[in-house]
């Protein structure tokens, strides 16, 4: 296992990889003839469940709303570079809800061109915003039952916050291709329809690339099992 570099370098690397993936012709593969394969496995996240407490505010005369939220913090596994022909844009929609002062899901992986809805399901205001270079936005304050949306056109990592509730945070990973998967509750992932070839498989968790592996999808399309451990 490769030792992870510093966080800053890793985040920079991740962004660079995600944004340059479309220009990786040397990974051109035989899309037409061979059977597509499956990459699957498990990411063992040592602390997948995180208890998030609101920041202490001595100014409050008592509080309302949820005090403690347990967030599931999955990993994202993706191909560092994807096959040629895999970059067609899709007009899709995704949802990141705001419920009990928590973004649900905590991690959202989408392809570039996707519009993400941010409905407010709490009985008070939220103010979703991001200062990420990939896609800065500020949706302002809006009430329960309302929703606002953002279209993400550029690949990269977008960290999302609420301006009112400082303990709320989430990640949106925007990919230029479709070869990625968010781990499920057991940490398992599955990336299907991968053309034969050799790839770098990346495991990302909470703002950092945690591990990378070289994998080969055979012409026969047999599933490739790769496990990661994230601490």
């Amino acid at each position, binding site marked *: 296992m490769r030792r992870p570099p510093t966080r800053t370098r890793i985040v920079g690397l991740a962004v660079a990889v995600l944004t340059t993936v479309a220009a990786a012709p040397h990974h051109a593969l035989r899309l037409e003839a061979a059977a597509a394969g499956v990459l699957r496995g498990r990411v063992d996240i040592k602390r997948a469940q995180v208890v998030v*407490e609101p920041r202490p505010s*001595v100014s409050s005369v*008592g509080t309302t709303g949820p005090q*403690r939220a347990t967030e599931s913090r999955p990993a994202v596994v993706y191909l560092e570079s994807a096959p040629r022909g895999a970059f067609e844009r899709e007009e899709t929609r995704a949802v990141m809800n705001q419920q009990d002062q928590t973004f649900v899901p905590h991690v959202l992986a989408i392809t570039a061109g996707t519009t993400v809805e941010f409905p407010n399901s709490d009985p008070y205001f939220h103010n979703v915003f*991001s200062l990420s270079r990939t896609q800065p936005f500020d949706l302002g304050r*809006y009430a329960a039952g309302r929703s606002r949306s953002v279209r993400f056109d550029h690949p990269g990592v977008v960290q999302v916050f609420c301006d009112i509730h400082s303990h709320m945070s989430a990640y949106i990973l925007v990919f230029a291709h479709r070869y990625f998967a968010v781990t499920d509750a057991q940490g398992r992932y599955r990336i299907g329809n991968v053309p034969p070839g050799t790839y770098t498989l990346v495991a990302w968790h909470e*703002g950092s690339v945690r591990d990378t592996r070289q994998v080969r999808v055979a012409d026969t399309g047999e599933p490739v099992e790769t496990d990661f451990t994230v601490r």
Partner: protein
Amino acid sequence: MTIGQSGSAVLFWLGLASLAACAEPALAQDWLTTPATLVGGRIVLAGDASVTFGSGDEGFFNYTNYESSTLRRIRAGLAARVVAGSRLSLLAELRAETGSHVEPYAWYARVQPWPDRSFVVQAGRIPPVFGAYGRRAYPQDNPLIGDPLAYQYLTSIRYDAVPASADELLRMRGRGWLASYSVGNPTPAPGLPVVSALRWNTGIQARVGWRAVEASAAWTMGSLSHPLVKPEHGTGQVSGRMAITPVVGLAIGVSVARGPYLSKDVLDAGPSAGTGPSLRQQSLGTDLEFSRGRWLVRGEAIVNSWSVPALSAPRIEAPLAMTAAFIEGRYRLRPGFYLAGRLDRLAFEQISGSAGPVPWEAGVSRVELASGYSLTRHLIVKACYQYNQRDGGRIRRSHLAAAQWLFWF
């Protein structure tokens, strides 16, 4: 000892850094994103540090009862909540700023007898229930740099000295920075703001909420303008606030407070013209907050009076009344960048001196315009311009500017 000169300040900063470094490993990986915790989430930490540098304030418009200007100060705070169960938590904040010791700004126990109901009791050095600004977390929740006049401007009222006559009081118009009177402590010293935003009272409070209505009440040892940590009077201040949220994004509150503000020494020194229990600060306030989209608008109005003993002619027959009001707004132009402004006014009622009726203190107006930019989510820079105008005193107008660097976690 003051910050910048004292070993305690250095220890405070070292302590803050150490606590941040000791935060739970899983959260420490991204401790700026999620609140830092210790002991499996039972201790939650938050902190801030700010450096403000601005024009010299020769008119003392921005000086606080810490004897320093809000436009020239270094400030750091570290807050912690210890979760002792579903019903009990302990909260405290250590704060250090220019002109003060490192001191416990707040420390209290919060009891929620029925965790699923909106009923909370807090006891210790507690936040004020009166108004709204006093409960704002200063660095992040103040889009400007200066404080509202009602919460900062030093009037000529003192807690440890009183004027013997109306003429003596009128001689101190516009000199709240360094007022002196013949009864009580004769040493010139800063006067009192209407509400002290920098010091909190010790006492007990309860809050109950039901749907769109919430009510809170408190008994504390000192008054709004002169909070106390230790008991000094036989009685204390009673205060309360009722607020309604008719629609999400609009909150309207009404507050009252009544309590002693004069020290026991001055009450003992005062001749028979005044009695302790009748010499009180009384306040009635209303506050409003409206937000929608990129807008946030807040305002408060306070009608306040201080009773002083009527000693010598020309006597101060009635309580010294005044009105304070401010309205402020913030508009977020683009992600991380906002503009803000505040209009502020203190107006004082007239009393009769030898020369006729005159407002007992010089009225003050302020316009402050500011902008803020988030370099990162946790690092904000602000800049402000401030125009102050006073109806009396040596310096009656001032144009001030300041910049602030603010870090919070």
